[in-house]
């Protein structure tokens, strides 16, 4: 793919004039009422789930002007999640990047500390919002799928807070890689259902959660953990996650007096990226970069980068970029990070890619591992392996950018869950 040419604005906050006439519809206006982000998105689901998605759409519409709903959510974010999360100037990471940059280069690196949110990742932003919706709909049970276990933990946490029943589907391979989070979910009172079908990872957990929902829609809400799935999920999850970007924007204006020149986030399903990008989508001079899991190689089965290496296709209810074979069968994927180990991506990212608003790239397992250690040792922050992908690309960008510029990296989650797996991978690498 061709990277978008970075635009250099003269003053920040002015809309950069484009060669093409200004679009009547802003990119941030998506989706349509039918859930379309450009040609992507939609709602490809069995009829049994249509009623549930319709109900969700209606309830979500009804709370738009319900001040009490948003007040309750804001209170939860403040007193329970610990928002706003910090905007942190990573001085030693910046210094290290500058040391590798040519003269006058080496941008300042800022971290949006979603790892400091309660439960250790941005996932809680979505689960609290959707759990509140669950209460609104009068349902008593939630289900969730999880890869790295962060969404599972965040769902179990929201369920405990609201007194809801909670079942979490998790691929057995992921459960092995993320044992700590399995234990946390159980401690929180959730039931963890390990999925042994298919590749035993996130895709299969998602299948099972959808199958559960087919038979439990009356009393159960399915809290999808990312900006994927049928309409209205991609929109709802993005909206609940967009608090990240709203805060970051205000924090940047307050602390550095301008918007950052670039924002970097890792992309699996794409919820943390959508959350931080969305508030900046119409600020065309801010470069947005999504980082997918490059795995070990570009051959099929060795990465999890649908936007970088995939093609449009339908998976889990929406049209987006997917990793499929020529017949539409889902391909195997690989990433060192369980949270990125998914063959699809949110439809809004596909739209942002095709409209060239966001540049998508990937970084390898090795680069992510290096960044994981680098951040831990330079700043005393152990990031999630997912997040480490964004850190790696953020550092790479900072080295190329000018010294007076700023790059904001979404530090989407903390890495406690990953330390054992990272240690195993580092050891394996040493003995190679």
């Amino acid at each position, binding site marked *: 793919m061709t990277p978008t040419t970075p635009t250099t604005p003269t003053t920040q906050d002015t809309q950069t004039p484009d060669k093409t006439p200004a679009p009547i519809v802003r990119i941030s206006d998506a989706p349509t009422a039918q859930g379309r982000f450009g040609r992507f998105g939609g*709602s490809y689901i069995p*009829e049994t789930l249509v009623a549930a998605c319709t109900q969700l759409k209606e309830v979500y519409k009804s709370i738009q002007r319900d001040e009490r709903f948003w007040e309750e959510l804001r209170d939860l974010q403040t007193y329970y999640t610990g928002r706003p999360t910090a905007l942190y100037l990573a001085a030693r990471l910046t210094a290290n990047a500058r040391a590798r940059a040519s003269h006058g280069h080496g941008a300042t690196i800022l971290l949006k500390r979603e790892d400091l949110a309660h439960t250790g990742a941005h996932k809680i932003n979505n689960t609290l919002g959707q759990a509140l919706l669950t209460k609104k709909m009068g349902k008593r049970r939630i289900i969730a799928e999880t890869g790295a276990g962060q969404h599972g933990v965040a769902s179990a946490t929201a369920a405990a807070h609201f007194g809801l029943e909670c079942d979490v589907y998790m691929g057995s391979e992921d459960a092995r890689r993320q044992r700590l989070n399995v234990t946390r979910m159980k401690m929180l009172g959730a039931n963890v259902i390990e999925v042994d079908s*298919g590749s035993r990872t996130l895709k299969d957990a998602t299948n099972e959660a959808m199958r559960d929902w087919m038979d439990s829609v009356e009393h159960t809400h399915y809290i999808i953990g990312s900006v994927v799935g049928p309409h209205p999920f991609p929109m709802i999850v993005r909206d609940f996650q967009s608090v990240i970007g709203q805060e970051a924007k205000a924090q940047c204006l307050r602390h550095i007096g301008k918007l950052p020149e670039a924002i970097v986030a890792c992309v699996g399903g794409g919820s943390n990226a959508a959350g931080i990008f969305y508030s900046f989508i119409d600020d065309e001079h801010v470069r947005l970069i999504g980082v997918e899991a490059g795995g070990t190689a570009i051959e099929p089965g060795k990465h999890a980068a649908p936007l970088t290496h995939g093609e449009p296709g339908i998976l889990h209810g929406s049209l987006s970029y997917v990793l499929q074979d020529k*017949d539409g069968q889902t391909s195997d994927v690989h990433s060192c990070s369980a949270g990125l180990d998914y063959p699809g991506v949110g439809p809004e990212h596909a739209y942002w890619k095709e409209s060239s608003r966001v540049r998508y790239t990937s970084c390898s397992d090795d680069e992510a591992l290096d960044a994981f250690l680098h951040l831990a040792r330079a700043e005393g922050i152990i990031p999630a392996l997912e997040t480490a992908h964004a850190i790696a690309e953020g550092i790479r960008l900072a080295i190329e950018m000018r010294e007076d510029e700023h790059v904001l990296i979404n530090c989407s989650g903390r890495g406690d869950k990953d330390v054992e797996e990272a240690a195993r991978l580092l050891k394996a690498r040493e003995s190679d």
Partner: protein
Amino acid sequence: MTRIETIFRDARQQGRRLIMPFVCAGHTKPDTLVHFLPALQHAGAGVVEIGLPFSDPIADGPVIAAAMHDALERGTTPEQVFNQVAQVRASLDIGLVAMVSVSIVYRAGGPDGFAAQAAQAGFDGVIYPDAPFEEADDLLAAAREAGMTASLLISPTTPAARAEAIAKACSGFVYLLARTGITGERSDAPDVAGRVAALRKATDTPIACGFGISTPEHVRAVVQHADAAIVGSALVKRMSQAEADGQDAVEAAVAFVRELVQAAAEVSKPEPDTGNEPVTESD
């Protein structure tokens, strides 16, 4: 009039109810269909629903999902399915309907490309299990354009007005889900009387009922009201079991289909309770 329409019209006129077995292409043997389709016709099936295997069939329970994975592991592709159908089509009178995920349709040339290939191979109709009404315009039009019928699903969770609209959009037959949830065997007989009666008021299109119809007793319960009973998991499971026991999967399936056909034959009224005049041929 398409073959599917003719089959249902004749059955109604003769007071017969149809058994629609579901078979997953490529399950148990790479060329299952070549042997299976003639045997099913012989056993008395009216229309056969042929599932194109998909890696992530979210509406399917463990039995059909495993059959699909089995078929994919032996490399089953839509192209092979088309070839096998083409090979036996000319020798058969039964209706052949493809059950296919939109994920596959999208890759196999989109709605038009897929429908053209399916019709060319000899399919008489298509069922789109994961395309709700709102996303189905192109799919329905493409099937009709190719001379096939197109069926969408109606669920117990579908509100009445929506069910009517879906039924009107379907051609050939309406696929009425006997239950919520995924495909799979159940112990209790489904109660579809009310929903069938409501649909009859809105449409003349025949109603085929599926999901969780596992026994001759379930078939009897369903065809009291509906024009046809679709049996999937219970049949697929017998095939898998026979294969595991070193027996002939096709034989096992055929024996079961005979039982189901017999059960359907026990429920024979001059007309199903359509509440309407018999469908008359228009051409």
